């Protein structure tokens, strides 16, 4: 084809100017939440008309609406998939309101949608009204579901061989914990809730008629536990699992992750115990053999 003649040079060595202005304006408009009828906000008309040509079928605003709807539906869809438990706790309407408010403040800042929920627990803490009256449960569920995202694809470091930590004296041994393990202290048995939810979803899918409707409306809840729930969200053979712990085991793992020696970590974990030292030692041995089997220990992170 014929080479086009270059009419003017508008680019500069720094940022592209007209291009940057267009991109900033269009992005600002399409990221504004949709109306209750899932349409683009009419207040975007001025930006749309300034940059976009209408055609014989659609106004400039209607054309921009296609992108705005795609943006919101894509983000809300991904967010809803990651936080299906939270949706089941809050119900559709409240969850959608929360999701829109959250995504308006914390849009995606990474090339992958995987990180979409990274600010959610902080956001829920700051905005308790959005989850009332189930705020405490919503927070617990959000923590577990974000942990599930991390457990799925955080890196796995080289496992420390059990012989190595059998050889090293406890007051000198430092162990790292695999980055994909998230240790949580919760006030609700969220692991139980997630199992129930999975079951509800499964029976909704196997009841062919109106399955999607049932599935959509599935609500679950659990009562607050009397004792705190200590949960490790982790990965084994590329699947994510929940593992409950005693308080002592949880404290011990946290101390190890913090860089304490094995000896110091055990001391911290059993500081308030009334159990006999032999009993504690038996427990520790049992835990360690299971954790080692799971491949949980790696070299400690360099400090």
């Amino acid at each position, binding site marked *: 084809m014929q080479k086009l003649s270059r*009419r003017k040079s508008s680019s500069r060595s720094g940022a*592209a100017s007209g*291009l*940057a202005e267009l991109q900033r304006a269009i992005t600002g408009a399409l990221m504004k939440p949709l109306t209750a009828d899932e349409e683009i906000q009419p207040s975007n008309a001025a930006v749309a008309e300034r940059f976009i*040509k209408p055609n014989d079928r659609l106004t400039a605003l209607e054309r921009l609406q*296609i992108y705005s709807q795609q943006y919101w539906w894509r983000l809300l869809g991904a967010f809803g998939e990651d936080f299906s438990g939270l949706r089941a706790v809050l119900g559709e309407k409240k969850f959608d309101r929360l999701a829109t408010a959250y995504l308006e403040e914390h849009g*995606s800042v990474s090339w992958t949608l995987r990180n979409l929920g990274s600010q959610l627990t902080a956001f829920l803490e700051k905005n308790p009204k959005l989850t009332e009256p189930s705020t405490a449960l919503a927070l617990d569920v959000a923590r577990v579901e974000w942990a599930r995202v991390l457990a799925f694809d955080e890196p796995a470091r080289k496992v420390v061989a059990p012989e190595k930590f059998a050889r090293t004296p406890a007051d000198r041994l430092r162990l790292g914990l695999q980055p994909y393990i998230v240790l949580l202290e919760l006030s609700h048995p969220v692991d139980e809730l997630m199992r129930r939810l999975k079951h509800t979803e499964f029976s909704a899918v196997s009841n062919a008629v109106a399955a999607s409707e049932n599935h959509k409306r599935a609500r679950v809840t659990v009562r607050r536990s009397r004792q705190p729930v200590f949960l490790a969200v982790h990965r084994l053979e590329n699947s994510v699992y929940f593992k409950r712990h005693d308080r002592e085991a949880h404290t011990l793992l946290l101390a190890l992750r913090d860089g304490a020696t094995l000896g110091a970590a055990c001391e911290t974990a059993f500081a308030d115990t009334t159990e006999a030292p032999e009993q504690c030692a038996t427990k520790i041995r049992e835990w360690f053999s299971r954790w080692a089997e799971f491949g949980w220990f790696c070299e400690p992170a360099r400090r």
Partner: protein
Amino acid sequence: MPANRFNAFTAYGVGIGLRIPHYDHILGKKPAVDWFEIISENYMVDGGRPLAVLDQILEQYRVVQHGVSMYFGNAARPNREHLKKLKALTKRTQTPWLSDHLCWGSVDGRFTHDLLPMPYTWEAVEWTARNIREVQDFTGIPVAVENVSSYVEFHASEMTEWEFLNEVVERADCGILLDVNNIYVSSKNHTFDPYVYLDAVPAHRVAQIHIAGHTKFKKYLLDTHDHPVLDPVWKMYAHAIARTGRTATLLEWDDHIPSFGEVHAEALKANNFLPHAKALAA
């Protein structure tokens, strides 16, 4: 084109996109597939199932990387972290070429996760070509840019989309991933003759072709990738192949994904057009 410098002188045939619902079938049954296209971003992670599956796939199949968020047309330089992760993945996959879209999609670090069309301006030509060159230089792998389907046109445009494509690929000296479905969708949305576009594409730069299905709404077509390829798109594909010669072709199916067999059978229909092209090209 058949083997050329934009696809690292490979001669791939008909492939399909690697998608999660097909993992078990592919790993279990090991069906014969010429090659798989992967979405790079899905595997730019540090561990877990995505990489474990990818490694198993790589033991059996040829894989080509296709990106969705490099955003060559952004009014900003490519993100360094993104580039590093992308390059690390290319070492793993040994992809002969890399593709991503002729579009923009993030501003000041906020991502739309969409493929937004460019204003076809000279400023955008220079900026986009520069970014493509940077990615090409950094990864050391030939880059092919894909034309996107679009739903808006900008007042600022100074040329047609196909003129813009030509200017960009000339300046960047890169390949083209020609998506014939995207041309069809845009031609309906913006009322132009898709064959004028096809004929303007520099055939010697075509590294790969995409085919896909779309959805017809009352006032526009949407590029949904949730259908078999429609007849007018097959017709355009035949026309494109007649110009480029036998070219690596990939069917995209991203939503309402049917069984592996169904997707693969739809892709293999492309073979009906390839021998003819071979004869023409010979």
